[in-house]
């Protein structure tokens, strides 16, 4: 296999890792305000992702960095062309990180409530916008060649079409389902019960929305009949999620939802192939894998590094999930973390009082 194609596949793998893992982080975050009824339940939800969300997010940085290194032309055209959606995603991610880490630092309902809203919104925004972005890659964008470089000339509103908006709805619903299934898988008691019911309902919506989107993607935008294969796998998995959530088999539901995401990424990258950014203006303007790729030397170095490090990363990330394999319930939540709301008025006095 030639190196640019290998790296096209590796970028797909990195995005898959990101969407499968951060997908449930986003789902849990999206549910934080609407689903959890009280402080203990919110802490249960936060604990399900607490030890792993930070590591999950690094898949995004790796995907971004690998695109920069392996396909500079793709990185440059895509990131400058999709400026405003990316800006919104970045703002949401920043707020979300601080919300997760800082909410417990002060034991004050007002403080925590604000951060919980920030977390919830900070999960919804990227969950929707990643779908819009990927749908754009499938649909093709207003790309021209200017001074020898591929440039996205359409501006922000060219990124919004019924198909791309539906793509955003799809990722939001899929991540919500993923999150609800994950909560059902990782918790016990009341929370598990309710998350199971919610996952059951969401999985039907997710099957319908994703099904419509995928069929449009295949029939309207794909030049290959081979991409029916991942589409079928994705659809079958989503049906499986519906069945598994009804039977309350949370483990199976989670695995099948993950398989559906893997298959969806395979579909998206399959439709794009042999381009990384198809042009909707003229196929001659499309940015191909080979045009976008780095030199053989860079791709060789990157391949060796990836071969050495990716297994190590997978090993210790997998081990993390093993360490925190136990289910969590409200019974495990004791006391309060964090300092009381008001700062001590006179530091010396309060210190002396101890």
């Amino acid at each position, binding site marked *: 296999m030639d190196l640019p194609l290998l790296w096209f596949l590796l970028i797909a793998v990195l995005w898959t890792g990101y969407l499968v893992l951060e997908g449930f982080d986003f789902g849990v975050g999206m549910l934080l305000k609407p689903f959890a009824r009280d402080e203990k339940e919110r802490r249960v939800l936060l604990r399900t992702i607490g030890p792993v969300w930070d590591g999950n997010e690094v898949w995004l940085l790796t995907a971004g*960095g690998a695109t920069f290194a392996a396909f500079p032309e793709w990185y440059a055209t895509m990131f400058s062309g999709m400026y405003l959606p990316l800006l919104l995603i970045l703002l949401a991610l920043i707020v979300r990180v601080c919300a997760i880490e800082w909410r417990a630092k002060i034991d004050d309902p007002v403080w925590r409530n604000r951060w919980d809203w920030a977390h919830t919104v900070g999960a919804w925004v990227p969950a929707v916008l990643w779908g819009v972005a990927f749908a754009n890659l499938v649909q093709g964008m207003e790309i021209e060649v200017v001074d020898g470089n591929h440039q996205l000339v359409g501006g922000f509103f060219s990124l919004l079409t019924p198909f791309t908006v539906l793509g955003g709805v799809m990722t939001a619903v899929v991540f919500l389902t993923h999150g609800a299934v994950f909560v059902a898988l990782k918790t016990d008691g009341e929370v598990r019960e309710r998350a199971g019911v919610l996952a059951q309902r969401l999985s039907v919506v997710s099957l319908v929305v994703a099904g419509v989107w995928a069929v449009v993607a295949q029939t309207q935008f794909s030049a290959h009949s081979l991409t029916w294969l991942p589409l079928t796998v994705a659809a079958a998995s989503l049906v499986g999620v519906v069945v598994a959530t009804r039977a309350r088999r949370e483990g199976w539901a989670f695995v099948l939802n993950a398989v559906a995401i893997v298959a969806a990424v395979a579909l998206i990258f399959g439709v794009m192939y042999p381009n990384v950014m198809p042009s909707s203006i003229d196929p001659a303007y499309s940015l191909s894998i080979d045009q976008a790729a*780095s030199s053989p030397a860079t791709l060789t170095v990157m391949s060796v590094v990836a071969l050495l490090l990716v297994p190590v990363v997978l090993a*210790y990330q997998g081990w993390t999930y093993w360490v925190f394999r136990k289910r969590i319930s409200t019974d495990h939540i004791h006391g309060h973390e964090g300092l009381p709301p008001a*700062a001590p008025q006179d530091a010396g006095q309060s210190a002396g009082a101890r």
Partner: protein
Amino acid sequence: MEALDLARWQFGITTVYHFILVPLTIGLSPLVAIMHTAWVRTGNEKWHRLTKFFGKVLLINFALGVATGIVQEFQFGMNWSEYSRFVGDIFGAPLAIEALAAFFLESTFLGLWIFGEGRLPKWLHSACIWLVAIGTNLSAYWILAANSWMQHPVGAVYNPETGRAELDGVAGFFEVMTNNTLIAAFSHTITSAFLVGGTFVAGVCGWWIVRSVRAGRQHEARKVWRTGAYVGLVTMVIAGLGVAVTGDFQGKLMYEQQPAKMSAAEALCEGEESAAFSLLTIGDLSNSCEGVRHLIQIPGVTSFLGTGHFSGEESYLPGVNDIQQEYTERYADQFGTDVDYVPNLAVTYWTFRLMIGLGMGSLALAAAGLWVLRKGRVTDTTWFSRLSLAVLPLPFLGASFGWIFTEMGRQPWVVHPNPANPVDQVYLLTQDGVSTVVSAGTVLTSLVVFTLLYAALGVVWFLLIKRYVLEGVEPLADDLATTGDQDDDQDDASPGGDREEELEPTLSFAY
């Protein structure tokens, strides 16, 4: 303003902001790891208190550092797409490897450290924070590999077919990884990050010594805070020496590789032998040499900093006018004759001095602390309390000014030409690196929202850290049991206390 200026402001603001947080993470995480290990090894509760106290501050700081770091990787593509096209073949690799080799490590093991107490054996739990510390330091290496390549490109060739800089074979990658600019920048950055971390620990503990003595808790002052202060002070002394030595090395390298930066830092207009170091220079802000007047000078010192010679032929340094003339001639065909090759004189001059001055400001605390706390002593003097607080921000500011100097000093280049091989075409003017499809309005929008969001989060960050510092530590067992003032560290390593701690997690960073 044009998109170019706005994109530069945005890069400057987001980077300096990010780099206020990063040195504390880099410097503090190994110190917390040391404290945690000492607790596991000795079972002494003073180490437990210190681990918990500084661990919480580390986590508050880490969150914002991570959050603002994501922006750094993405804005190359968003605001600097033409730069990304030109250098991505080389510059992208260290960024990707940073994520793969370092960032995964620190993020994953930080999660294990926060939530892992009670689920992991004690030694493994403390190994997690060591892996976080190693990860943060490795991150710095890869990021500086990328930055150093922009300062001094090696291992690269220009490919006329693709019109971009490309890696000079696989061997080129090893040149990028062993770039002498990288070695210098890494050692200087890491030592200054340790100075930041050490000063933070010493300053906070120094202030708490005074406070707890005054509150009648001699025991806490002696055992917890004095111990913590010593960890910080020793780090400061070693790191401070390291900063000076590596800074000198880096300065000499800069005179070879980016003479305009160092000449501008001295506001040296015409080339001369035995050039003097000025403590005060005034000038107009027109960035021309005409208004520059050196007021207080130390002869020969600039020459020594740049060349290692105080006088004689070997001490000759070129002035910015010489460099302007030389570059104009060399690049006339490509860029015309209007390009200003001299970096902003006022900014480079003052940031260079502020970097050195503020960095050395920490020495006051190191010297005072070592003297005041000698031989088991503690103090309740107001001046030491005030000094401890006053010195806290200095190394942060020193590090920030250092970066402003480094980055502003290489303008107008974003990829500075390598003087050893100036015709290989691997260089890029900053103005040619900016995204062409992004409008000024769009950049302005993102500049404004980033600045506002960063400002708001910065306030919360500061207040949270302040709250946690003010909170202090839980009372020691001895303080609860007696009001005695005896200080013997030996007998609190009781095995009974150890067993109890295994039952319930006591660090409890989990949320």
